[in-house]
């Protein structure tokens, strides 16, 4: 039986080399779009996972803390946070969704290494270490090689801290903490002018020598100075366990992590301890809308009198949304570019086919095929090319993605502190695969429309003269 599809297929096979080249262009276009899309998808999941393991899906804060509170945490802290955490965990709707509910306290302070006479302003985060370790195990997207090791603060005394490597250098703690690029401070010798008297030169030399670092056994010491709610200075003498790179230099130069109890003692002294945020980590990101809605209900009812709000990880980390928007724009650009290439390739192929088959078009019209029938033949050829390209493109993209993933390539993305796998995620991304495949088929069919319309408008007598 000779249907339109059968005829289209045979016509495609008629000029195999040209059909193959067209198909190849479509395959490459689809593969480029899918592989880049899969790469972006993996980055998206990786970024999301990174934020969720460190700060949860949702955070309950004082309603003005995010805008105003970082300079004065005491004024924007959450009172009675333990009662709120208990209520959240016991809530029949919210409770089953929660993996971790943990408080944290963030504030600005001054860190000093008084033995070396250096200090600088820092950003201190007080955490419940066990909770944070549990949060770090979240891996809803099955990210490969995700670091789930515990925090360095695990099982350590309350007076210990972790700092950024940049801060370690500034505080001259980089040597004892074995931080890379830790150059000893040197004084350049000024050889111009007359020589110094020997006694003054000896004195200058003694000043230029690095000061000894205060250590307690193997751990260097550091002092943190913070202001209490009433403005009184509180100082804590801490042992620095390690210096860890924080990914972004601006954060790395000011980062200090403490046990929550120590941080609360610093800010609130003997007053009732408070926190600046309660982080909620959910089992799945898909639960986020429902969980947020429920938290809002609780804040509006159970905690009606308290000035609290709930923010999700996207609101808390604008970088996430900006990164995704950038990748979406790049992806859109590539998709449009590939679509245009496919459009012109298929259109060119169809145009050549129309020219070559002019006499056949005349014959078909003469024996009774309507203009619409001629259009159908060429559009079906485009559709068939699109379907073939889609099936082969998806198959080859899946194979290429598997190959890339098997190579265990790694990279350090912006904002991360450690190598992460360079992966392409296509398995399970049904929507992306379907939309890309349908897009290719539609573009291929659209590409054939103009040549098909031209073929259908041919004058029959003129067309028959081409025989």
């Amino acid at each position, binding site marked *: *039986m*000779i*249907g339109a599809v059968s*005829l289209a297929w*045979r*016509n495609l*096979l*008629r000029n195999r080399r040209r059909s193959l080249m067209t198909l190849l262009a479509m395959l490459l276009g689809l593969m480029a779009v899918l592989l880049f899309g899969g790469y972006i998808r993996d980055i998206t999941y990786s970024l999301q996972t990174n934020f969720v393991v460190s700060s949860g899906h949702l955070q309950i804060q004082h309603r003005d803390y995010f805008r105003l509170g970082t300079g004065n945490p005491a004024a924007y802290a959450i009172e009675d946070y333990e009662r709120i955490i208990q209520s959240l965990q016991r809530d029949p709707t919210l409770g089953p969704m929660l993996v971790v509910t943990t408080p944290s306290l963030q504030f600005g302070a001054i860190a000093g290494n008084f033995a070396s006479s250096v200090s600088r302003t820092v950003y201190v985060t007080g955490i419940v270490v066990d909770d944070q370790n549990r949060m770090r195990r979240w891996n809803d997207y099955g990210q490969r090689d995700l670091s789930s090791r515990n925090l360095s603060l695990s099982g350590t005394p309350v007076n210990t801290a972790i700092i950024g490597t940049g801060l370690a250098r500034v505080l001259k703690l980089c040597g004892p903490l074995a931080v890379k690029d830790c150059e000893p401070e040197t004084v350049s010798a000024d050889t111009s002018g007359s020589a110094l008297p020997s006694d003054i030169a000896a004195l200058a030399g003694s000043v230029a020598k690095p000061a000894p670092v205060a250590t307690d056994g193997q751990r260097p010491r550091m002092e943190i100075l913070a202001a209490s709610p009433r403005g009184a200075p509180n100082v804590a003498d801490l042992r620095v366990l390690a210096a860890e790179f924080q990914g972004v230099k601006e954060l790395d130069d000011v980062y200090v992590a403490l046990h929550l109890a120590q941080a609360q003692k610093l800010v609130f002294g003997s007053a009732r301890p408070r926190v600046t945020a309660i982080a909620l980590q959910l089992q799945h990101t898909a639960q986020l809308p429902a969980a947020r809605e429920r938290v809002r209900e609780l804040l509006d009812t159970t905690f009606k009198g308290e000035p609290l709000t709930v923010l999700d990880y996207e609101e808390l980390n604008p970088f996430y949304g900006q990164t995704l928007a950038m990748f979406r724009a790049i992806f859109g650009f590539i998709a449009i570019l590939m679509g245009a290439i496919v459009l012109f390739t298929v259109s060119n192929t169809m145009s050549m086919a129309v020219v070559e088959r002019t*006499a*056949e078009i*005349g*014959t*078909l*019209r*003469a*024996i*009774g*095929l*309507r*203009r*619409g*029938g001629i259009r159908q033949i060429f559009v079906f050829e485009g559709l068939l090319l699109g379907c073939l390209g889609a099936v082969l493109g998806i198959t080859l993209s899946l194979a290429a993605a598997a190959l890339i993933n098997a190579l265990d390539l790694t990279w350090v993305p912006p904002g991360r502190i450690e190598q992460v796998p360079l992966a392409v995620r296509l398995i399970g991304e049904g929507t992306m695969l379907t939309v890309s495949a349908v897009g290719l088929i539609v573009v291929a069919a659209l590409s054939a429309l103009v040549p098909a319309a031209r073929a259908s408008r041919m004058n*029959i*007598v003129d067309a*028959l003269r081409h*025989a």
Partner: protein
Amino acid sequence: MPDPSDQFPPTSPGLPPEPAKIGVRKKSLLHPIVLSRVSKTYRLDTVDVPALVAIDLVILQDRFTVISGPSGSGKTTLLNLIGCIDRPDEGRIMISGRGVHTLDDDALSDFRGRELGFIFQNFNLLPVLTAFENVEYPLTLEGVAPAKRRDRALQLLAAVGLEAHAHKRPGQLSGGQRQRVAIARALARRPRIVLADEPTANLDSKTGSEIIDLMRDMQRRHHVSFIFSSHDPKVIEAADDVVYIHDGRISSIERRLALPKEPA
């Protein structure tokens, strides 16, 4: 104003005196094709070239009619107009009682498929289809059931002596065999009229004679009007009626068979 096609005979040279009586009888049967004051002009760059000038013609049904004349005389243009693949600039064309000049493109396509069959000088078979499929294809357009299509196509291929070559593609067939397939395809939908433009021009003398005999045989067996454009003496010799055309005008009509008599 009366329709010129209803006035028999139209004023044209060479028309037999009898058509006045025939016209009173079953016109659609006896006068399947009527052209009245048909003109066609082609434009070459800035010059208008008249291909046909005010043609009046009646082509009788169930005849082997040849339109003959020198190259450029307008015979192919006349055949194209009768075949409804071209439109006249002026005048009317009635085929099987329908004014085809009034039909829109889709209706004309349907009309061609239903009423007309075509045989081309270059055979014009679809190269991606087998001989069987080429014959079957017009039936597919008509929406005939697969089993009936198959029977009809095989029947026709057998009638033109090509049942053994049914599954060969045109590229695997000789010129004569291709033209036989084209004849079978032209007859597939049981048309009233088959139009053939120089059907023997690309065939050797022997094959050309065989093809003429075959068409003659098919015309008799299927009761179809065959209309040719040709200046092949063998085709003219085999014709029932010969319409001579010169410079876009009918110079004479030679009717070799007696006109049908009125039924008692």
